[in-house]
């Protein structure tokens, strides 16, 4: 039997699960901005709070780390780029390449910020139904003239729905390539090509099938329901969350 990944909605009854999806999106945007701009000490505090939230909602961190392995490769590349491009007092010098203490700190902080934002995204997708995200996006864009808010909401909903599918498909493609001896090929571009093409082909085919299945079940953009009213608890959480972000800015 299959199991849920960290990218699936995990049903629950925690305060994060019960928070209005619009407030979750606002808090996520505020926290992301905070994470990108605060000092190292504030970053420790905010990411610590995120880790506690992850634990509170029962986020499968180990499974998430396993599924994020490709993201870690990207992070490593970002780290290397920052280390090599930040000037400072050199610790090691290899030819024209220079590694400084400032570069290491700067690279580490950038990766930490990005990782914290991903953790924040995981908290959102694992506690919010895709339909709630869709309704919220439609609600936010409803007053904006010229924006097809329902179409935008559907697109976003489908992207969120497809994230776990893409990871599952990536796992299948990797296993299939390994079974056919890809390990003996050292050329990283060849390996990337043989991984990407079947992955894209599979994802596009699944997206086409889903679109057909939705059409067969009379899907239309008008089917997106309206939002219910926010409760005082939602407002309380929004004020508390925004307050914490403000405090983090001034540390």
């Amino acid at each position: 039997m299959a199991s849920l990944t960290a990218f699936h909605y995990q049903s629950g009854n925690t305060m994060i699960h019960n928070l209005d999806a619009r407030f979750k999106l606002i808090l996520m945007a505020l926290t992301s901005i905070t994470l990108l701009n605060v000092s190292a000490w504030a970053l420790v505090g905010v990411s610590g709070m995120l880790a506690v939230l992850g634990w509170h909602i029962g986020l499968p961190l180990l499974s998430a780390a396993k599924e994020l392995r490709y993201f870690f490769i990207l992070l490593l590349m970002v780290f290397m780029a920052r280390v090599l491009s930040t000037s400072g007092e050199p610790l090691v010098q290899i030819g024209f390449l220079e590694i400084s203490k400032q570069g290491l700190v700067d690279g580490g902080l950038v990766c930490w910020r990005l990782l914290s934002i991903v953790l924040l995204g995981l908290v959102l997708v694992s506690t919010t139904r895709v339909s709630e995200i869709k309704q919220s996006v439609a609600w936010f864009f409803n007053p904006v003239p010229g924006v097809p808010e329902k179409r935008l909401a559907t697109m976003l909903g489908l992207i969120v729905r497809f994230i776990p599918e893409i990871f599952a498909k990536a796992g299948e493609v990797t296993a299939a390539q390994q079974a056919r001896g890809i390990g003996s090929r050292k050329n990283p571009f060849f390996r990337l090509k043989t991984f990407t093409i079947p992955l894209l082909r599979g994802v596009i085919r699944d997206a086409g099938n889903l679109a057909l299945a939705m059409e067969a079940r009379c899907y239309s953009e008008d089917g997106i329901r309206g939002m219910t009213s926010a409760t005082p608890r939602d407002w309380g959480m929004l004020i508390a969350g925004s307050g914490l972000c403000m405090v983090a800015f001034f540390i």
Partner: protein
Amino acid sequence: MAGPNGSGKTTLLRHLNGLVMPSEGDVSISGVRVKGNLLHARKMVGMVFQDADSQIVGETVREDVAFGPENLGLDPATVDGQTDWALEKVGLAHKADMSPHLLSGGEKRRLAIAGVLSMQPEIILFDEPFSNLDYPGICQVVGQMKTLKKDGHTIVVTSHDMDPVIELADRLIIMGQGRIVKDGTPALEGREAISLGIRPIMAPGTVRESAWLL
């Protein structure tokens, strides 16, 4: 409906639901043209796709089954009523609040059937319903088809393997290169079946003969 790969089985099914429009000729469901009356066609004809995974849209089993009735614009009480009825019908009521991704292959196929049933169509199309299913999964789906037939639904099934459904069938159509090459009663001898590109139907005692033919 049987026939080799690429013979047009799925394309024909999609015409019945209005997912594909004919370049020539016309398709009517109960006397109403599909073209220009798509909503009627989709209310009348439900379709269970080959890959159950790729038609799941809900985060829970209940939410997925409610997707169709919600799209029809029914009021919430009717949506809930039809969703509960469909879940009960396919035996998934006890898993209503589970994530669909945790269901087995056979259960996912039953979920897809519930998703169609909740829209209360008269005709149900099954596109290769037994692919990627183990034996218990096939039995679950066949059991479901028997119930649907007993309830008065018209069922159209495409499959390479007609064994599981042949006893339910009143009519067998064999497709080949986009055309109907045989249309009649579901009796097909081994040699004829092979010449038409499908697996012979195994009546009791014919297994040895069919193995020899292959």
